């Protein structure tokens, strides 16, 4: 993938990456949204949604509490959605390979957010006297530059992710040795385990939570059996 080809996807990654923390935190950066939008960019929103669902299940594990470090799902969702939607339909290795690329992007992008926060703290240190003196210009400059840098960070992560992973995923898909059904099954099991563990972590203290879950499970089982 060339720079020009990756540019529209990078712009989408920039906007959605900005949503994670800086503006407006409306959760357009959640993978179920980001991957679907990226898939729509490529012309296959349904493929984007499919990998977005798998990523969303895994993303349930990360809660963005305060200053904790966590993976950045906005750019990762865009990279995963675009990569998976660009593969020919029915290729067994497409989902696992695109998912792996998305998870690696999420990890790197999370690290880039830590770097950005340190950069902003460095800028703050340099303008501390002005801000302590009540300078409106210094404060606005710090804030707006922070947002601009976040936008650039997300664009860069998405662009680099697409340039590295696009040929890599294509190559992996071409030489993939496992059958289609087991490949999909492994991905589903991984997503189910992470989502189940995450939900238990968050909700285990709620009274009768197991019974409530089993109630929902019974309803879905009936729906599946009847369907």
């Amino acid at each position: 993938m060339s720079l020009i080809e990756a540019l529209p996807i990078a712009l989408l990654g920039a906007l959605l990456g900005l949503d994670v923390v800086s503006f407006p935190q409306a959760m357009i950066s959640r993978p179920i949204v980001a991957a679907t939008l990226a898939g729509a960019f490529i012309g296959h929103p349904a493929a984007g949604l499919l990998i977005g669902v798998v990523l969303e299940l895994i993303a349930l594990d990360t809660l963005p509490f305060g200053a904790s470090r966590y993976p950045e799902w906005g750019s990762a969702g865009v990279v995963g959605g675009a990569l998976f939607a660009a593969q020919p339909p029915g290729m067994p290795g497409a989902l696992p390979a695109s998912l792996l690329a998305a998870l690696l992007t999420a990890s790197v992008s999370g690290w880039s957010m830590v770097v950005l926060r340190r950069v902003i703290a460095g800028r703050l240190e340099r303008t501390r006297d002005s801000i302590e003196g009540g300078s409106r210009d210094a404060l606005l400059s710090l804030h707006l530059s922070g947002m601009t840098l976040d936008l650039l960070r997300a664009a860069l992560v998405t662009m680099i992710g697409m340039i590295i992973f696009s040929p890599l995923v294509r190559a992996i898909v071409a030489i993939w040795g496992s059958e289609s059904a087991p490949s999909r099954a492994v991905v589903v099991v991984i997503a189910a385990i992470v989502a189940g563990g995450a939900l238990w972590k968050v909700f285990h203290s709620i009274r009768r939570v197991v019974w409530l879950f089993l109630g929902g499970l019974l309803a879905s089982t009936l729906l599946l059996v009847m369907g």
Partner: protein
Amino acid sequence: MTSPTAPTFSLPHRVKVAMYLRLLALQGSWNYETLLGTGIGFVMEPALRYLPGGVDGPQYRAALARESRYFNAHPYLAGIAVGALTRAELDGVDPVRIERFRTALAGPLGSVGDRLVWASWLPFCSLVALCVYGAGGSPVGVVGTFLLLYNVGHFLLRAWGLRTGLSRGLNVASALGNPVLRQGPHYIGSAAAVVAGLALPLALQRVVGPGRALAGGIIVAALLGILLLARLHERAEGWRIALGVLAIFVLYSVLT
């Protein structure tokens, strides 16, 4: 609950709108030193222009500097602090009292917001979207359901916080006793448990696609994995484990 006291000065509507819009960009300069602090100053700035002397006056400068220092809160509930601090500054409250108030408010606004939003509302909305997907929803249907549902709560919470802060001023602590903030996580969590039971099998079944030959193996493997991860509790990050296992599987599938 303490009744709101009458404001000594009412901000023009456009200033409140400007503050609300800036509230959406509150974390633009989030950093490890002042956390939300500079963002609080950024959001309050349009209102502080109404202090005596305007933007060139010493009161404006002192207030802007004071409000840009270290502060932490959940971003959606920070509007309570922004509104309350704005009212206090415009009412000419003693700066020492304002500093004490800032320190006291930061902790509760963080923990209450984290429990209500990150650990309840967000997973609940994700699960509802997964349920819509499992039920055969289209991309527009799934994404639209998630964004609409989540953001009704999100934007209303921010607006309520700012309004409450501006109307109550330093008496805002009682607003934290609001039933939605106190009991919301419990009720949302209970609903999320039911939706999880409904959503996970339906969504996973649709991801697997036609043919259920591996369904039994998938269910057993998933249940065993969930039990193991639940036992590990806080010691394991699920997404990291997913990354490792997936990398091994991709390597295996490429090399065989």
